[in-house]
């Protein structure tokens, strides 16, 4: 149990995403049990399951990004010498900051445009679902920026030590 708590604190995105996923699984299971065991399903199951899943996907996407689980291929980049590879990697991370940041910006416009919309079954404001995009892509932007800073530090720091060695 202690291990469990530690893991939750250390991996808050995974934990959050997993919690949403558990909600998704549990409501679907409970609905099947109710339907066969008690002759009555719950009308809101689909909406809760899918909304919860959307949160799980976008927050989980950020977790996967943080732990570099989205695979890219280095087929071409690996042909270059190390210094240039590092530089490419910096450019790529800069691009990732721009892409994800742009989606965050658009998500605010999107939420604004849909502020009066409500979900079809439970009739709650659509922002409770739509905000998943904002949260997920904000987290991804933050991680991309962190990678960018770390790599830039490495790149420019490494040059300093290389020069130092030559003296």
């Amino acid at each position: 149990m202690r291990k469990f708590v530690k893991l939750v604190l250390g991996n808050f995105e995974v934990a959050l995403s997993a919690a949403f996923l558990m909600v998704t699984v549990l409501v679907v299971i409970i609905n099947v049990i109710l339907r066969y065991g008690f002759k009555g399903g719950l009308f809101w199951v689909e909406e809760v399951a899918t909304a919860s899943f959307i949160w799980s996907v976008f927050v989980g996407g950020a977790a996967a990004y943080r732990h570099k689980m989205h695979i890219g291929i280095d087929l071409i980049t690996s042909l270059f010498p190390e210094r240039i590879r590092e530089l490419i990697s910096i450019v790529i991370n800069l691009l990732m900051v721009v892409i994800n940041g742009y989606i965050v910006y658009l998500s605010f416009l999107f939420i604004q445009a849909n502020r009066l919309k409500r979900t079809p079954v439970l009739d709650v404001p659509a922002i409770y679902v739509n905000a998943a995009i904002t949260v997920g892509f904000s987290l991804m932007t933050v991680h991309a920026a962190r990678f960018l800073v770390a790599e830039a530090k490495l790149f420019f720091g490494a040059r300093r030590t290389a020069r130092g060695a030559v003296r």
Partner: protein
Amino acid sequence: MTVFPIVVVMILYFSSIPIAFALLAAAMAYFTFGNVGSPPDLVLQRFITAASSFPLLAVPFFIMVGEVMNYSGISSSLMKFADVLTGHMKGGLAQVNVVLSTLMGGISGSANADAAMQSKILVPEMEKRGYGRAFSAAITAASSAIAPVIPPGINLIIYALIAQVSVAKMFIGGYVPGLLMCFALMIAVRIIAGRRKYQPVRTKMSSPKEILKQARESVWALLLPFGIILGIRFGVFTPTEAGAVAVLFCTLVGVFVYKQLKWEHLPIILKNTVYSTSSVMLIIVAASVFGQYMSWERIPHHLTNALMNFSGSPWMMLVVVNAFLLFLGMFLEGGAVLIIVAPLLVPVMRTIGVDLVHFGLIIIVNIMIGGITPPFGSMMFTTCTITDVKIGDFVKEVWPFILALLLVLIVVTYMPAIIMFLPNLV
């Protein structure tokens, strides 16, 4: 027709940006700078609609089933069963490797999870018994291609949703191609093992009594796939509910029957499920957004016309399509190929009169072969990383298996009578 987004995707992808982000970037660039007269923030509606489909929930559920299975003792029970069945053959452990992937396919449907599990468990054992490590890694990767074809499988579900065919038909249709892959690999192993004198693990064939005893021990795992398929077929539950019920079932079996599943396994199961699910789902979302661009530019329509001008014969068309898919599979992960390309090819197939369930089985067998071919095969990377085998050595050992699976692909493509027999019964 603007093709710049397609070029952008290729440039970004080959400069090592993950495919989901390459697709998103290209599509967002199109809607921002492409003068389409639709504000780019409207496209974000797609992010939500693409992910908020109840049938799609079957995907995370079956991913989770596979993870639960690995910690519930179901895997090791299936391994004993595979050993009883094939341990006496030449190249015994390699045969066990193939049969185990086939049996595991009946519960989980992830080739990478299967490749990872067997790389950790079977490859060291094979090395101890004198098999080459590169050979062991090659057969592990090649056989893991079977698991997603045997129902239930995530790709079968995703294709069914894309092509709007019945999930039950796709599930049942997976059996024959999956078993053909299993037999083809077993024959390849037999030939190689005979030449290299790889010895059996058991001195003689197990008696029917032994097989029955082990089958009884693994009965929960062996019957689950049939329960799922029958349940869907007779409307007891939807495929999504079947996935959720399977999660519950595997958990209960792990806790109460094999008594191996513990609370401490929960974090790792959830973590792996979250990673796999969100990776797949981000690609689905991104491909759907990119699909907005493609339909805006009427690319599926143009593609169908171009292909129809090229050849109207289904026979020839399937040669071209298979070659194209194999080529893509060399660079792109199989699931991504399916998600991006299937929506484009399904209308073409409908026009030339290829059965869509049949086509789905072709495309799924095809993309699995891509997973073990260089330069970029996801199962190849998984096994090579875990077993510490060089890609070059792996390739030297894997080619007979690629050949065997290509033969299966030809059968699957051109003998619909065998392949479609089971799904047509449904």
